[in-house]
């Protein structure tokens, strides 16, 4: 307990508790979250979280859709880093089908995934700044999310809900403008991130608001199945990219930052360092791409890879494969597969059971926001209301991923 917090004594005249309905649409919570809090003055005595306000039954819908139509559903889980979800889903199906990706596709995917990780962390860290009263930092760094979205726009045509790539690769190669924009981003972003850190990391007000607030031990974090930056901030070096490498992450040289106390300040530091590491990974990926044969952007698996439209209309084989894929006529093994990727918020898992029909028999998303958020109410007890707000920001709970 921080010493400059007021202490309420037993004979306090205002001993009656106040019930505060925080949410579902409260401007301070950045999303649809409802928490019914019992307050003693400004201190939270107990809280109950209610979720499900944007539950869209994705798991049920997925049981009625062929594989290629499920990609847009994954967009809408963590919509701050849609490409990671898309890639995770593609890789799950590719694992089921035993498709090996060419290295160039892996590296292109790594670029897209790391860009979206940066976008995700930009949102979270600037919002922590915003909620502690530092609007400047929010405005300075947030424009780089826009630059990342411009890169996505160049690669796939969409910005937020990207639907990027296909099962078996990408729908098109990165064009020269995309590479130019990535290079421009890599040139400008480090300076901005440095400026952002200069503004916040050693800022007395920011440290007072975040350090020592919402501390979590690694035992508690593991007990509650936390993953991602939240778990790493407590000191556990678990990162799916390292422990269970996918998409050739084993070829890259990067570090997994860990914190010590798991408080909001550590989470902020871990996310910042991850952005630096993501920049490193993208630079390495661009370097590796130089030695790869140009023009390869998908695996040679015509029976699973949706062919380009101009080929569909001009080429018999492409037309047949297009028809079979769209009709869900692909021969996928009858099996079950679990595949996990490191999303912006932690381990994003896909548990897919295929029974040979045109749609999955069962698809379950292991959504890190959902599992991380269950600790919010218990850990808020004894906290000041304003601390609980920045605690929620630092957990980076995305309503779409929370409710699926």
């Amino acid at each position, binding site marked *: 307990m921080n010493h400059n917090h007021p202490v309420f004594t037993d004979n306090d005249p205002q001993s009656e508790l106040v019930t505060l309905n925080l949410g579902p649409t409260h401007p301070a919570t950045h999303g649809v979250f409802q928490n019914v809090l019992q307050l003693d003055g400004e201190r939270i005595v107990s809280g109950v979280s209610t979720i499900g306000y944007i539950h869209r039954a994705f798991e049920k819908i997925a049981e009625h859709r062929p594989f290629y139509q499920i990609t847009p559903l994954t967009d809408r889980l963590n919509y701050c880093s849609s490409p990671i979800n898309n890639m995770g889903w593609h890789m799950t199906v590719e*694992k089921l089908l035993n498709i090996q990706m060419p290295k160039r596709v892996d590296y292109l995917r790594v670029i897209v995934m790391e860009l979206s990780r940066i976008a995700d962390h930009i949102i979270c860290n600037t919002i922590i700044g915003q909620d502690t009263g530092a609007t400047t930092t929010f405005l300075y760094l947030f424009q780089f999310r826009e630059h990342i979205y411009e890169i996505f726009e160049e690669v796939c045509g969409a910005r937020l809900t990207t639907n990027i790539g296909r099962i078996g690769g990408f729908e098109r190669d990165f064009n020269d403008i995309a590479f130019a924009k990535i290079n421009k981003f890599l040139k400008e972003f480090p300076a901005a991130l440095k400026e952002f850190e200069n503004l916040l990391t050693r800022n007395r007000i920011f440290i007072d608001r975040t350090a020592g607030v919402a501390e979590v031990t690694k035992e508690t974090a593991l*007990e509650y*199945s936390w993953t991602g930056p939240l778990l790493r901030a407590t000191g556990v070096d678990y990162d799916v990219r390292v422990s269970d490498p996918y998409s050739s992450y084993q070829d890259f040289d990067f570090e997994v930052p860990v914190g010590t106390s798991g408080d909001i300040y550590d989470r902020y530091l871990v996310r910042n360092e991850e952005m630096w590491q993501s920049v490193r990974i993208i630079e390495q990926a661009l370097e590796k791409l130089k030695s790869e044969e140009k023009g390869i952007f998908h695996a040679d698996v015509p029976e699973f890879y949706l062919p380009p439209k101009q080929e569909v209309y001009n080429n018999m084989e492409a037309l047949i494969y297009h028809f079979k894929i769209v*009709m869900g006529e692909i021969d996928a093994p009858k099996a079950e*597969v679990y595949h996990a990727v490191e999303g912006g918020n932690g381990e994003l898992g896909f*548990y897919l059971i295929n029974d040979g029909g045109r749609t999955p028999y069962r698809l379950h998303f292991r959504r890190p926001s959902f*599992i991380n*958020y269950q600790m919010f109410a218990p850990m808020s007890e004894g906290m000041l209301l304003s601390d609980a707000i920045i605690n929620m920001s630092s957990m980076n709970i995305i309503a779409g991923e929370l409710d699926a």
Partner: protein
Amino acid sequence: MEETTLNNTILAKLSEKFGEKVTAVAEPYGLLTFATTKDVIINVLSFLKNDLKFNFLTDITAVHYPGKDHGIAVVYHLHNMVEKVRIRVKVFISEQNPTIPTATTVWKGANWMERETYDLFGVKFEGHPDLRRILNMDDLGVHPMLKQYPLEDPNRVDKKDEFFGR
């Protein structure tokens, strides 16, 4: 290959401890999978957690296989972060009486995962501290992920598998 050996060691220890309660062993895509029964599931999970170092509960969910004797499978995914190995445990329970002991006694994080499974499949986790619906509204009345509840108009036939040669 190394993973397979590790899986064999794990399986040997499990079989030694639980004997014929460990059934339906498979290894799809290198992930050791087995089924057990609901009377020993908490012992199995505790054994995996404490003795075999599967310290991390990745996920709890369920699958509905209508028409079978034990039509609901509760699926646990566990993770041993030190040896980097995952394991999948299944428990098949009856559709008419879908009860299973809660895993919140082993991992506190099982709380919401079990609430979600209860909400979507109607699996009653006995001993759960707060078994309420979590994603759907309280008065929904059904457990919507069960296969008997159609997503679309049930009279619609153009999406039936038989029209796609299956």
